[in-house]
């Protein structure tokens, strides 16, 4: 099995679960945080002894809202991480809600070893924040970025959402401009996606909320891309931009198909087996079940799948094409490449392929082309 150098830690707690969110996140369970931190620490310990892991090049503490953890709790978790082995210069990211970014917290996180802060700004427009059910204001978010920078974070990301009903192109660019003005090194701009199992999904289904049409969404997307490039942030993944040297190394590992370990409720892991197969496994989602199972059996696995080398190569290409500088992950698919180049979705040079502008807009069509057809259960029967 290929040695693992990336670790994801999931913190599934939120003060409020926003209506568009379909992550593994739970409100009003903050009381579970102390036993959860114990369970998470335990899972990290066990994984460290059972798996070929470390030294870790990247650690990503995501959620939910990991900034609900106290500085002491973050420190406890990081101590366990260090026991596995943390490479010199490793990237350690913590996702934070603007409301939690205070001077003392910033100081505590830095002291615990966190060196990259990813801030959930989402929007600066009051109407949009209300629609999205964010509990902070635009000013809070700007202040949070300032506090993080002033407190000593040299690598700050802001998450933004576009394609929100009621936010026109000009208003969206204003938000972008204001965030850029704070000097962030990294920016993720996501199109607001309607997931069916969310309250937003329900509102859209019942006609209560209408989403902007595809043309408007793409207009906001490409306008942001142009503005960010002009500001010196390179567009390196479909929804991600960074200054030179500040690309998120943790996510790059995923997109480049390197293995990672995920700990915490609902966390996914990916292992590369020596014979070319890929194993993916995931933990139970609920925090109660996670805590219980981890304390009883030291494991919280819920499911796993192993992909044949052929399917694994297809998956690697599906993810790899999201990297806009190009990827070599599609080298085993000459026929599909030719077809996609012919359709104007891919450009090809030196065995590397990269999405064209149209290819970005239809990235799922490109990704799907590399997936191996799996026999449906009905056909397998025959």
């Amino acid at each position, binding site marked *: 099995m290929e040695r693992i150098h990336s670790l994801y830690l999931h913190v599934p707690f939120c003060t409020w679960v926003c209506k568009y969110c379909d992550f593994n996140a739970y409100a009003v369970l903050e009381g579970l945080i102390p036993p959860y931190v114990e369970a998470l620490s335990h899972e990290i310990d066990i994984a460290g002894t059972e798996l070929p892991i470390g030294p870790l090049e990247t650690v990503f503490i995501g959620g939910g809202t990991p900034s609900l953890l106290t500085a002491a709790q973050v420190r406890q978790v990081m101590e366990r991480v260090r026991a596995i082995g943390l490479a010199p210069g490793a990237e350690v990211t913590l996702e934070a809600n603007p409301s939690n970014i205070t001077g003392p917290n910033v100081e505590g996180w830095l002291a615990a070893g966190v060196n990259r802060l990813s801030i959930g700004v989402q929007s600066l427009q009051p109407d949009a924040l209300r629609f999205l059910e964010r509990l902070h204001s635009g000013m809070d978010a700007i202040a949070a970025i300032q506090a993080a920078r002033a407190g000593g974070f040299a690598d700050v990301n802001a998450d933004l959402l576009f394609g929100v009903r009621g936010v026109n192109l000009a208003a969206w660019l204003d938000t972008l401009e204001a965030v850029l003005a704070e000097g962030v090194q990294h920016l993720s701009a996501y199109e607001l996606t309607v997931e069916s199992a969310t309250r937003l999904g329900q509102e859209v289904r019942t006609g209560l909320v209408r989403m902007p049409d595809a043309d408007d969404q793409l207009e906001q997307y490409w306008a942001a891309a142009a503005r960010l490039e002009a500001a010196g942030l390179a567009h390196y993944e479909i929804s991600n931009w960074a200054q030179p040297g500040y690309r998120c190394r943790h996510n790059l590992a995923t997109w480049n198909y390197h293995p990672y370990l995920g700990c915490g409720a609902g966390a*996914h892991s990916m292992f590369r087996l020596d014979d070319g197969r890929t194993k993916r496994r995931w933990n139970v989602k609920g925090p109660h079940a996670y805590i219980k199972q981890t304390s009883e059996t030291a494991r919280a696995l819920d499911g796993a799948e192993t992909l044949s080398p052929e399917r694994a190569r297809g998956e690697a290409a599906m993810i790899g094409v999201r990297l806009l500088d190009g990827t070599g992950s599609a080298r085993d698919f000459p026929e599909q490449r030719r077809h996609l180049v012919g359709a104007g979705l891919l450009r090809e040079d030196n065995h590397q392929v990269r999405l064209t502008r149209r290819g970005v*807009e*239809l990235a799922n069509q490109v990704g*799907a082309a590399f997936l191996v*057809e799996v026999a449906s259960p009905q056909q397998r029967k025959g």
Partner: protein
Amino acid sequence: MSTPTHLTRAISVIAHVDHGKTTLSDRLLEYTGTVAQRDMVEQVLDQLDLERERGITIKAQAVRMLYKADDGNTYQINLIDTPGHVDFSYEVSRALAACDGAILVVDASQGIEAQTLANVHQALDHHLKIVPVVNKIDLPQANPELVREEIEKVIGLPAESVIFASARQGIGTKEILEAVVREVPPPTGDPGAPLQALIFDAKFDAYRGIVTYIRVLEGTLRPGMRILMMQTGKSFEVDEVGIFRPDRTPVEDLSAGEVGYLIANIRNVRDSRVGDTVTDEARPAAAALPGYRHVTPMVFAGLFPTDTEQYQQLKEALEKLQLNDAALVYEPETSAALGFGFRCGFLGLLHMEIVQERLEREFNLTLLGTAPTVEYRVKLRNGEEIPVDNPDHLPDPAEIEAISEPMVTATIVVPSTYVGNMMELSQERRGQFLNMQYEPGDRVVITYRMPLAEIIHDYYDQLKSRSKGYASLDYELVGFEEASLVKLDVLVAGSPVDALSMIVDRSKAQQQGRRLAEKLKTLIPRQLYEVPIQAAIGGKIVARETVPAMRKDVTAKCYGGDVTRKRKLLEKQKEGKKRLKRVGNVEIPQEAFMAVLSLD
């Protein structure tokens, strides 16, 4: 245990679709103890999954019951359940040829409908004794007395002979059985005469080869006998003979009047032809039985595997299916758009749907069916006349002298309120009014002469919807008639798609072309490119629509925890695309090929 001939009866149950034949058959089986109550499932005789799911009977089924009558005798009653839908009237005709009597079931609230009449006529053609039953008398809207009067006036059966029943509640079951043993004559055959047995169905059994369903008319059939198929001239040694109770049960012999099966190591589908006569090779009968009228397919369509590698499997599947579906005919067809497949002939649209569904389910195939069409007769300028069952094969207009199309007499039975609607619809469909007759019970029987092509294009659905579901339809082929017809071609992304061509009435061609293009626009999903759709008559474009290119398909987030879900989603979409047929650069769904069926 052999029953003397005078205590044997062979009957069918006939009715319009949904009047309760199969439920009544269930009750008879239960009442006679043929099927123990604990083994009773609904629709015992419907063996195909499809039949139970759709609640209809497709195949005739045979079963033997023993009934101890009030006169103290135990009778052997051979029952053949039959389908009710017009498409399967051929099955009914086959079943009736093997019987001496028929139980006619009429719904107490629906009354006499088009296929009630058609089935009665068939039964009378076969000289069957009819036992009339008014069924579903327990329903609140039932009017059994009125229906009884209808039966007397319309069909001419005495009102006193009508039995009131509710198959669901088991009312009238005994009365029906008593009437059967009393009214239906015993078979006239002589068990000692040379063997004459009529093949009325056959089925393929993976272990036993072909199981041949027969009715013995003369003589006696025993295992060990060498039999001769009188039409094909092939001979076989009989391994087993048996009856249906309702499962296959071997017996020592089958003699004159009895219904059952034979197994004789017959491997080739074609050696057990429905309608053929089985006789004793050593002591052959003087002549073969008349058999059945040759079944003519009414509608034709192409069936193509969506995966070209399934062609051979499709071929084998069609062979096996044809064995117990004599009405199905097919021959290889090559389409520029769809590749290799088969042109198949069907009895009607339901038959076509059922065949496609059976092929897909029972043989694990994924198929694409093209729009059904009728068979035209084309007279060429050089004097030759050719049949054309595929619009794409229509010769160049310059070579055509005339085109004739099949005509039917359509019989519509409907409450008088809807007569206007029915006439309007039939006139729109190029119908020529023939006759109208008012019957008791506010029932009007209207007959039209009209092109079969119009009937297969959505006519029945329209008939139902414009009569709030009350109208019923039966039709019969009456011949060919010259018409002014042209071929309408469809071009997708600039290339003609042969499988979308249709032959239409010249005066309606342009309008049909426009409607077809509009309809296709809604059915062809957005592709990577913009897809123009054009309809053309004789090379002249008469309509154009455009399917815009797909605008956006991108997932904003794909991080470590999202990969499995995203991959599965894309895989599922890809699986869904397998039902699409790639024609050039365009993926076309099955529904698009059926679009021509509902252009109104």
